[in-house]
């Protein structure tokens, strides 16, 4: 017989926490230039939301998470970062020179947009990596994994 959830307390707590975590993660991301925060913290908070969701589910439904795909997603985070940096090269700048980004705003503000873009990249990378580590660890005790563990 399959249970749909680990325990009712966990489920209620997670259902309350997850939306708050997602909103808070996005706040930490976009507000990183004005207050403590930034891509890493946002990535960790967002990953926590996903991981809580997985903790909530019972152990026997944990099969088939998209681990390899999430490694690909984790790679895409730094790729966003690099593309942001390369974007200024056609306009005569060096790598990561935000002041030459083709945005119709004041120069210092272009830096802000540049920083925001790379923070998005960092967030995606960190979030996907932490989820992938969690998923990999979740495979440790699988029955088709030979050998005794821990």
């Amino acid at each position, binding site marked *: 017989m399959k249970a749909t959830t680990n325990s009712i307390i966990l489920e209620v707590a997670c259902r309350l926490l997850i939306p708050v975590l997602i909103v808070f993660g996005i706040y930490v991301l976009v507000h990183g230039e004005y207050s403590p925060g930034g891509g890493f913290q946002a990535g960790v908070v967002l990953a926590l939301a996903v991981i809580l969701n997985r903790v909530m589910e019972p152990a026997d439904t944990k099969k088939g998470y998209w681990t390899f795909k999430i490694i690909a997603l984790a790679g*895409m985070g730094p790729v966003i970062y690099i593309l942001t940096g390369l974007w200024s090269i056609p306009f005569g700048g060096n790598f990561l020179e935000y002041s030459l980004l083709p945005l119709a705003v004041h120069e210092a503000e272009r830096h802000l947009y540049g920083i925001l873009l790379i923070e998005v990249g960092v967030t995606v990378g960190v979030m996907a990596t932490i989820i992938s580590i969690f998923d990999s660890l979740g495979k440790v005790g699988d029955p088709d994994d030979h050998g005794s563990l821990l």
Partner: protein
Amino acid sequence: MMAHIPVLLVLVPLLTALALPAVNWMMPRLTQIFLKSALLFNLALAVLAMRHVVTEGPWHYWLGNWAPPFGIEFVVDAMSGTVVLVTAGMAFVIALYARPFFKMDEAGLQARTLFYVLFTLMVTGVIGVAVAGDIFTLYVFIEIASISSYGLVAMGGRRAAFAAFRYLILGTVAATFYLLGTGLIFAMTGTLNMAQLSTLLPPMMGSPAILAALCFVMLGLGTKTAMVPLHAWLPDAHTYGPTPAIAFLATALLKAFAYGIYRFLYQVFGGHGQPVTAMALQILGWLAAAGILYGSVMAIAQKDFRRMLAYSTIAQISYIPLGIAIGTPAALAGAALQMISHSMSKGCLFMIKSGMHLKLHTTQISELRGMSVVMPFSSLALTISAFSMIGLPPTSGFFVKWQLVRGAAEAGFGWMMAVLVLSGLLNAVYFFRILENVFIRKPEPDVHSDQSHGPMTSAGPELPLPMLAAMMILAAGILAAGVGSGWLTEHIFSLISLAGGGL
């Protein structure tokens, strides 16, 4: 695009590594083509960077166009250009070579992709170590190269996992040493830029805090280079790790850290001009000499070809610090030539090791009898690379020893010349023992019954074509570097700067 080559040297392998899982997921058939063309492109960039350095001198690149003390700077000069060239070249050759190493089931293909991801990340780190002009950026590059190498070593099996864990512990302690040294330097000067440090540091070289920083940085980089009292991690990691990873680790990663030692001693701490640094160089010379002798003697004592290669790496890698310690132009040219020469010959030997493993199912030296009959091409390559290791004339190894001996004679280090000659003899002992087994001794009847029951099915008569091709490329490279060493010394190595003002 040409103006951005210093940063592209780092970005191309990094972008390859990051995009590889996505490419493998979306278009599995294109993975290998994508990887190899990116590495080939990177090699072309390295050649272009080298050409620029030769024609127009050191190449400075400001990231984000922030002026150096405030932003990060990349510097490509003759020595770092050599490291970049060696790294890019070896990365391409090893990527060519590694294809038969993976099983073609689903897990094998995933493992292959992840292996190449870590491999290209390691290439990124090594090239970054070579071009970084900022001591904290150097730390971050050291760590990316190290962490990916721990992972690669651990992929070799259960013994490799343990060896990799020890490597990780020692490597991370080394990194904390390095970071502590960086902190002390930062506390005393307030900057992290190497060029600015080379002007700020000389007046305060007498301070114990700077002396401690020098010690910590050297301890950190020395552990990563496997200098002799700090080499404990290397033999196990070399013996048990998967061959393509170890071949790259021994050929490029260790060289990059040895280059880091050069960078710090000459371009940050002022080279032989500073009494404190001169003393550090002296100690470095003693340790390097000890490493050469210890590695050679231990290599003679080994019965297993893999372990012998590991100790041989300890011995051969110490030639670079030795050249750095001597510090005359000839000796530095010798050190730079050793980077090229050792990476090709040791890479070739590792490839041959895997060939033996595949064909003869053994790496015990005593069981290699009659290998020249079964594996003629491998035996030829083995001969060439062994000659280069010993230092016999047509190969590049001879010119390395020649330059180092010349440098030691100029600087008046008689004992170093003795060490070099002695090490040549010791190398001859352990390599001729193998060559004797391979060529002269008659095979025992049951050693190679020539039915391949390993996980690979060997298609050709000797070895899979990619492995043979990579081996032959390297063997030809050893001879070419030997013949062209005069040209290399004249046009490239003569540009290696000795003093802090060179940056």
